[in-house]
């Protein structure tokens, strides 16, 4: 066994546990081992895992005017997203979905960043951004079509400025960059946010998107959810430096934020989007978080990671910490939580019903939209297919 893989199996220390002298520890920690990706991260945090609000001179202004109602809104978003995700996981187990990629544990990273976007911004997700889709107003049941196998995407990206899920790792970062280049050409002041994971950071397309966005000063925010695992490969197998530090080599800022802190994710993303709007170019945000479940319902995390690791991250649950804060600050009462519980159950029920009622696509959908302007071969094959289908009808009628 190599040193690296031993290190990978070690449970990570608490991300940003507030303790005496933590600031000094952070500073020296960063100096001591700048090239140890799994080490104590120097990260932006506004809410500790214990639900305590901590000050941050740089990012506090971005959430200074947040109201109790908005805080409850963030909480509601995270709870409903988690409920939706749990329902989808169950539906996969019941055979209703072919596959599901759970976001469990990443609610704060997605809701915080998603709520930072403006209506005219554009989002380029991977295939796990269910929380961001929620923030953009995409009906969550739309996300299930491709996992059920009734389509390969299934929504109009321009309805909510939320692009289709992208399966090929990292491809969408280039689409995001190109789109942002277009925004700049149009003279618009909207921005783009591209989501990807720690595994994607190894892909050439991500590196190329960094290059292009920097060279053209494109208004794009790269939001990397470092959930520590690319299926079974730990971050240590993707990089020798903390991911947010990559940005420096391309000439734009990189920030590591506590990905389980919804307030910090909101503030940092707002800051980055505003930079982009002002024409100051791209930013890389590394949301340091944890995927609590499997990569998808197809893999088995017990084969590649230790239970203690998950347990250590459970202590940093994004939903619990905001609840603690809301309660301590008297921003939410029992009635709010009870009402949300009921809403959550209703969402689960609706998702279940909609999925089960999803019709199989029409047979001719195979040929639909292969081309925008048509294609002679597709026309020919559609006709052959129609004749073949019709032959069954004819047989049936003859009986």
């Amino acid at each position, binding site marked *: 066994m190599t040193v690296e893989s031993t290190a990978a199996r070690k449970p990570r220390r608490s991300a940003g546990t507030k303790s005496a002298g933590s600031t000094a520890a952070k500073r020296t920690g960063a100096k001591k081992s700048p090239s140890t990706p799994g080490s104590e991260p120097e990260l932006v945090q506004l809410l500790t895992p214990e639900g305590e609000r901590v000050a941050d001179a740089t990012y506090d202004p971005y959430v200074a005017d947040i109201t109790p109602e908005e805080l409850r809104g963030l909480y509601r978003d995270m709870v409903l997203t988690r409920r939706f995700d749990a329902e989808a996981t169950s539906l996969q187990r019941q055979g209703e979905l072919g596959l599901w990629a759970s976001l469990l544990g990443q609610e704060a990273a997605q809701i915080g960043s998603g709520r930072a976007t403006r209506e005219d911004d554009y989002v380029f997700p991977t295939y796990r951004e269910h929380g961001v889709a929620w923030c953009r107003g995409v009906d969550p049941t739309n996300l299930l079509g491709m996992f059920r196998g009734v389509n390969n*995407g*299934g*929504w109009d990206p321009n309805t909510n400025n939320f692009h289709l899920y992208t399966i090929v790792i990292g491809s969408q970062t280039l689409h995001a960059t*190109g*789109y942002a280049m*277009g*925004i700049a050409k149009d003279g618009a002041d909207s921005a783009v946010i591209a989501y990807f994971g720690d595994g994607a950071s190894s892909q050439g397309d991500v590196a*190329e*998107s960094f290059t292009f966005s920097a060279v053209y000063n494109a208004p794009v925010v790269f939001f990397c959810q470092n959930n520590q695992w690319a299926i079974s490969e730990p971050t240590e197998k993707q990089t020798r430096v903390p991911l947010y530090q990559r940005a420096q080599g391309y000439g734009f800022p990189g920030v590591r934020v506590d990905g389980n802190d919804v307030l910090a994710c909101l503030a940092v993303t707002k800051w980055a989007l505003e930079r982009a709007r002002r024409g100051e170019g791209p930013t890389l945000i590394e949301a340091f978080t944890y995927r609590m479940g499997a990569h998808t319902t197809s893999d088995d995390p017990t084969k590649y990671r230790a239970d203690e690791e998950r347990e250590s991250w459970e202590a940093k649950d994004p939903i619990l910490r905001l609840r603690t804060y809301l309660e301590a600050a008297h921003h939410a009462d029992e009635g709010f939580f009870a009402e949300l519980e009921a809403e959550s159950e209703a969402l689960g029920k609706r998702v279940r019903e909609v999925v089960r009622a999803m019709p199989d696509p029409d047979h001719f959908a195979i040929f639909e939209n292969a081309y925008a302007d048509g294609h002679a071969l597709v026309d020919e094959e559609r006709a052959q297919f129609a004749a073949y289908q019709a032959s069954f009808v004819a047989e049936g009628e003859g009986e």
Partner: protein
Amino acid sequence: MAAEKMALAKAINESLRTALDADPKVLIMGEDVGKLGGVFRVTDGLQKDFGEDRVIDTPLAESGIVGTAIGLALRGYRPVVEIQFDGFVFPAYDQIVTQLAKMHARALGKIKLPVVIRIPYGGGIGAVEHHSESPEALFAHVAGLKVVSPSNSSDAYWMMQQAIQSNDPVIFFEPKRRYWDKSEVNTEAIPGPLHTARVLREGTDLTLAAYGPMVKVCLEAAAAAQEEGKSLEVLDLRSMSPIDFDSVQASVEKTRRLVVVHEAPVFLGTGAEIAARITERCFYHLEAPVLRVGGYHAPYPPARLEEEYLPGLDRVLDAVDRSLAY
């Protein structure tokens, strides 16, 4: 300007200029396309006249060029990207095949991807490796892409106009060894459809079907065969996806013999598809099996051997003789 003799590269340049003029959403992107005007000078002078925002010199990253062009298309632009040489398209192959080709269908038709990818292709210019390949079958095999190649200046001008206006992604293969060949371009004529084949020379004994750089070889072969008393019809396919099988069929029903000629390897190539389809469509008309002339199942050879590899007059005429001997 109406009819004028111009080199094929110049015709593409004029076509791009016309498109840039007509539609502010048209963009040119690629490595060296700006100041240099491209390594073949196809985009010469365009940046000077339209600015760096319209004619964009890009980082040296093919996947990045195509991937950002997709994003620009999603924003409403119509990017025309240049891949410097055929063999350099492969770093972008993933973006072209997994993203560009499929996005329209995945969005249930709600978004369009009007991206043109220009690829100077083929051999015959004495280049080093990766500079002489003909990968058109790899793209034609992918649903969602359209693949075309002009063989003369007039087609180069008009097909580029049509490719840019297409709402589907078009892979535009430019026969680089014909860049300097001059022929007449009428910029006011009304062009035929982009994907229709064209009979360039009428004949009665056999059909030669080709596209891009091999059309000239086939015309020369037909002229040589004429001296031997054989009447060959030459069909310029112009489009490899879709292929205009109706025109091929019409010609074969007349001549009863077909030889398909291309530079790309014969194995699993465009010629194989045409042979199979025409055998289905014209089984009772054919006097001989459809024959193919093309490259070998080997890496494109070093320049000193390329004349052996590339189909020339003799190899085409040899296939004609074999067909006529049935």
